[in-house]
């Protein structure tokens, strides 16, 4: 009893009572919103789950016992097989079929030195990612200044550039890849095109946001001595934003490695294609080798890029999702 006495508020003045009531109303409304929002979320979630289950080929509970089939199917003949597949060493099980023909894929540099097939494919995927990041960031760099409100005065130009970047970013990569696949036939170039075009949009947006946050004092100084637009951008803005641009470039590279792997799996070359082929043909050892290689590469790329970004921009190093 005494506790409630202690906590009982002293009698409020009429004005304070109004404030108090108002606060209680606000708190109650806020709670209502929270509960309502959560209920809505729950409803949407359960509806979505039901819908997904209904339209899936296998039903969730029927398929749950088979969930690990992917790995169970992948049990190789012996545990050295994946190593042989990874380094293209001859297999003792070789029966002339595609399953054990590891040495066939060797890419010879000289008479005796070769790159194992999957390493070569991995390099191909990394090259796709790096080259398209380079191309995309070049165009993103060129476009970002005309989208930034502190650099470009023309509202019309800004609007056009921003809408362009948005459309390019939202345009599904797979459609660009599919379109160029139809023109160029199979190969990595459709993937380069698709990833680059997407990168222009994604990096262009990141870049112009950095530019808009830049310190305008150098620009002011340059303007005072009569520098033209290009000089103002090049000497006033670029030195400030370059570290952040490079940091975003590296982040984008990480994302693009994953994107080009996936695009590879739908026919655009690189390690993704090898993975899809080996899975669909049921080649266990090859699949394990590729999955392992892919895992290692992504870890290495992520760590390296995180380290480099840290060096470039220190605590300012930004991180964000795989997204755009």
């Amino acid at each position, binding site marked *: 009893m005494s506790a409630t006495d202690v906590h009982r508020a002293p009698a409020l003045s009429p004005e304070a009572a109004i404030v108090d009531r108002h606060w209680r109303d606000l708190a109650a409304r806020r709670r209502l919103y929270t509960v309502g929002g959560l209920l809505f979320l729950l409803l949407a979630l359960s509806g979505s789950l039901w819908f997904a289950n209904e339209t899936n080929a296998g039903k969730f509970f029927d398929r749950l016992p088979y969930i690990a089939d992917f790995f169970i199917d992948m049990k190789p003949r012996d545990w050295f097989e994946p190593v042989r597949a990874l380094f293209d060493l001859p297999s003792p099980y070789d029966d002339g079929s595609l399953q054990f023909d590891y040495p066939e894929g060797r890419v010879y540099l000289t008479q005796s030195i070769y790159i194992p097939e999957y390493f070569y494919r991995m390099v191909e995927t990394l090259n796709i990612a790096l080259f398209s990041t380079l191309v995309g960031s070049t165009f993103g760099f060129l476009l970002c200044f005309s989208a930034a409100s502190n650099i470009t005065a023309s509202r019309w130009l800004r609007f056009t550039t921003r809408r362009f970047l948005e459309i390019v970013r939202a345009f599904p990569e797979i459609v660009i890849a599919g379109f160029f696949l139809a023109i160029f036939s199979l190969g990595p170039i459709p993937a380069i095109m698709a990833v680059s075009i997407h990168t222009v949009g994604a990096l262009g947006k990141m870049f112009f946001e950095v530019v808009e946050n830049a310190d305008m004092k150098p620009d002011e100084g340059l303007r005072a001595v009569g520098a033209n637009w290009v000089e103002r951008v090049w000497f006033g803005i670029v030195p400030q934003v370059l570290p952040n641009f490079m940091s975003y470039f590296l982040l984008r590279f990480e994302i693009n490695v994953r994107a080009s792997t996936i695009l590879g799996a739908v026919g655009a070359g690189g390690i993704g294609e090898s*993975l899809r082929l080996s899975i669909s043909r049921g080649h266990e050892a090859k699949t394990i080798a590729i999955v392992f290689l892919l895992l290692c590469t992504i870890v290495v790329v992520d760590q390296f890029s995180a380290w480099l970004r840290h060096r470039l921009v220190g605590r300012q190093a930004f991180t964000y999702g795989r997204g755009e």
Partner: protein
Amino acid sequence: METAAINDIVARHPDAFRRSAWRRYATPIGILLCILYSFYCWWFFSIGIVLEKANWNLASAYLADWVSYEIRPDIEFKDNYLEINYSRFSKLGSNPNPEWVVKQTAVVEQRADAKKMAPAVASDKSSHDSFMAASAPTADNPATLPQQSLPAAPETVRKETVVTADIVFGNGRIAITPKLVTVTRGAQSIVFDIARDKSVTPRTPLPDWIEQRRPGSTAYISFGFFGRAEIQSDEVIAWRRFLGWANFVFDTNSPFWGKPFGEVASLIASGARIDPKRSNAALAWDNIANNAEWQHGDVWLKLLQTIVMAFVGTVLASVVAFPLAFLAARNITPSRIANQTTKRYFDFQRSVDMLIWALFFTRGFGPGPLAGMSAIFFTDTGTLGKLYSEALENIDDKQREGIRSVGATPTMVQRYGVLPQVLPVFLSQSLYFWESNTRSATIIGAVGAGGIGLKLWEAMRTGTNWANVFYMVLLILVVVFVFDTISNYLRRKLMGTVGNGNDERPVRLLPVA
């Protein structure tokens, strides 16, 4: 400014004017390296060769297909008359008679073989009708056909058939008679003599919009966007291109097809039942959803699957990552083992590519949205967990101390000391991922993980359905923009209510710990 003053400034700021060699040359060296790397890639992917070999005419044709469609009449040369056919699933329905094919009919004497005999009597209007009628009886009782064609003594009948046909293109026309074809584009006109089944011979030299690879062989005519045509020795094939999407609402099998909007509306509202089993509105809806060319129903279902995949995947990932992030943050959970285990687990989930998760779950659950949402869920648990734990490690400790100092339980400290600081950041991150997952869900769909990706991919692989591809792309763009806007709005609201007032834009970037 005098020289002395300049020298003075240079002397006072040596670091600005005499920078180290590294700082001076870093930019040019970087640019040079990039250029060298580009050359290397040019060679590695043999880009030059591929670009050279690429079929750019195909590219423009495909691009045109996105927003237009072609109708292909075949005009076959007969002895003294013409026979006009349309492809079997013509976009003009089963009885095409477009106004851009101007026909002149006359009664001519024609040799009728047994196959043509029966219908020849029946047909009276255009040659097209005679064709349809001709094929009908043979299709109905094909068994009688050989018997009929055995006594195929040439016989003549007189009937009205097409003797000239004019195909009108936007910028030209092709006038066809059994022996002579006149092609006009703009002011230029070329006359071709046709020796049936032997040769096609132009009377004058060909302009650059007509190509004939060998004398007497097929002539290829281009009308730019309006279409193209081929003059062969036995027929003229025209591809007439029209802007727009053909039969977008109703396909040719629908009773509503070809009717103007007002008529369809009045039929639905007050017309007599076309199908006695259901109302006209239900029939119209069914016809739209099951439109054979556009497959609206299926496209919408797949799009909804994609949306659901992104939504459920992100929500579940957030829900799972939330408690794990508290375990991973070293300022919340003091145990180093727990921190490191959770963090390495996040790294593992993140590093296994979404592609591998997608393949894994597609094998487990079978193709469909369950596989896709599980893939998104697994990948994003790692990423969100990492971001959440970094946000937790960056919190302001004063609030926690304050709560603790008044004797709150550990749970209460988290609830009132930590959560209010990080919840907007968490939600904002999740919203951001929701938005970007809507995009990635399209891609993983193509490897079988459900949603519109596979449908899109299949439509592209056939190489003929570009209008459908564009339709789906537009739907995806609309969905992405709508979600973008919702997520941006919610994020601005969230971040607006909590501190950080100087930042107008939604906070999407978190400093690394």
